[in-house]
């Protein structure tokens, strides 16, 4: 069994989800190589080489990969597939964009969002917003897998893998990158934060949403949101936690003014400790919260901020 992990990075730093993906790939029981495709991304290759368990780093450094467009990247990965039994990426926005394209070129049915490796061909994955866990066996000649980063321990960094430059591909010219607007934040990334404070429709306005950010800052945490809060424009889309947003599992998740729809729970119910603050004592979020406080956000959150500051 030979697995190739697709590293996720921004040409400068490797994303922590890559470490969890390596762990998932190692559980397939064979060797694991890692692909770093980008532009002027030698530093990323160096970081990838340190990940424990990685045999070899394949470095495809070319302007064609600068913006990680799915068309050239999938062509590159398909070209490498012959040497591998499994291709593994994180179930992130980037992994979800690229891997099914790779799978279709290889005539493989991808296994999405894997949370456990049962054996080299059998996997557990959530369906119906995490209300059921399906165990599936792949009958294809190769595996194409996306792994849920929160379900696998991050691999450590004790490795010294060799880095090998590989030939690149030409741009098929199907899509053109115009712009990227990255939400600038000094806070930790949602998917790897230890603490998350998430706000919902109950916050009422984008100005009031600063209560949520203040609480997050005191706790050194990230800011999350329900779909309703994002739709209302309180906070950008990349903060959405849930079935169709980000999957998180921090040590502490504080849900403020969030009712607890199954689509939201799907993204956060694996958090270690869940706190809910909601003025409606019947809100479903209380059914999964370790600590519930039935209170108005505008009274409870300032009080909480004060007492943590004290």
């Amino acid at each position, binding site marked *: 069994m030979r697995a190739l992990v697709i590293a996720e990075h921004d040409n400068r730093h490797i994303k922590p989800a890559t470490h969890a993906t390596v762990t998932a790939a190692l559980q397939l029981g064979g060797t694991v190589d890692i692909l770093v495709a980008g532009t002027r991304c030698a530093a990323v290759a160096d970081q990838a080489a340190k990940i424990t368990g990685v045999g070899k780093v394949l470095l495809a450094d070319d302007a064609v990969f600068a913006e990680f467009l799915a068309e050239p990247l999938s062509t590159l990965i398909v070209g490498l597939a012959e040497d591998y039994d499994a291709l593994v990426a994180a179930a992130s926005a980037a992994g979800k964009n690229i891997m099914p394209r790779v799978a*279709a070129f290889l005539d493989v049915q991808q296994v999405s969002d894997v949370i456990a490796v049962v054996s080299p061909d059998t996997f557990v994955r959530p369906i119906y917003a995490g209300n059921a866990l399906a165990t599936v066996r792949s009958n294809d000649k190769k595996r194409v897998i996306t792994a849920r980063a929160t379900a696998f321990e991050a691999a450590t960094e004790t490795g010294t893998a060799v880095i090998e430059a590989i030939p690149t591909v030409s741009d098929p010219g199907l899509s053109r990158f115009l712009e990227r*607007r990255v939400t600038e934040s000094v806070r930790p990334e949602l998917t790897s934060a230890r603490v998350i404070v998430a706000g919902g429709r109950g916050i009422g306005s984008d100005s009031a949403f600063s209560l949520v950010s203040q609480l997050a800052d005191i706790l050194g945490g990230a800011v999350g949101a329900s779909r309703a809060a994002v739709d209302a424009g309180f906070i950008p889309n990349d903060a959405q936690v849930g079935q169709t947003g980000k999957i998180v599992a921090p040590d502490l998740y504080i849900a403020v003014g969030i009712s607890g729809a199954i689509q939201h729970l799907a993204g956060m119910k694996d958090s270690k400790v869940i706190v809910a603050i909601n003025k409606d*004592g019947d809100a479903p979020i209380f059914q*999964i919260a370790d600590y519930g406080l039935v209170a108005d956000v505008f009274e409870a959150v300032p009080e909480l901020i004060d007492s*943590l500051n004290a």
Partner: protein
Amino acid sequence: MKVLVAVKRVVDYNVKIRIKADKSGVDTANLKMSMNPFDEIAVEEAIRWKEQGKANEVIVLSIGPQSAQDTLRTALAMGADRAILVKTDDEVQPLAVAKLIKAVAKTEAPDVILLGKQAIDDDSNQTGQMLAALLGWPQGTFVSSATPDENHRITVIREIDGGLETLSLVCPCVLTTDLRLNEPRYASLPNIMKAKKKPLDVTTPADLGVDTTPRLTLLKVEEPPTRKAGMIVGSVSELVEKLKNEAKVL
């Protein structure tokens, strides 16, 4: 511009599903079924393009049992022009769905194919990307804005992990919708009546020459682990005390 939209019939997003006692699957019998919410957004987008004069025909396509006709009729009532049902009672997994849509696209020759980013039953998030690969077309996934222009290109804004990304795609292309693209309309009663007379063609995977044998075997379906019941605290100070001394997360 001709637009093809793929719509899936799924268990309504408000319904809590039950797992069969023998763990062989999810029991969907007698549950309320609806159009996959992301596909409603896709249908709405296509109809808006038509209303804006950017599209001249909107075709909706579903793969599933006879009852998927209801979902297609809903799309017709929203404003689509005609419908195609690829009828099958078998489970069809994303790769095979993509092959079936490709086969229809070969005869219909649309300029754009719109899909939802994810079906809320299997949560695969694959079909659009696979279809784009099989056709050799560009893909714009998770889009929250899509603007076709006169140069046979579409500018899309994509929801990505760090924020938003803008791409320009050449047509023909495949787009998958995210939640912020639009708010789908409800079909009016007169339009529901009119939709009954719109054309709906029925074909089969065999007619289209596609093998839909599942590549993934479902071994079992289980309940996720449940969390142990928590407690309601009486005050902010009690909450802080518990988080510090009991949960030890502060």
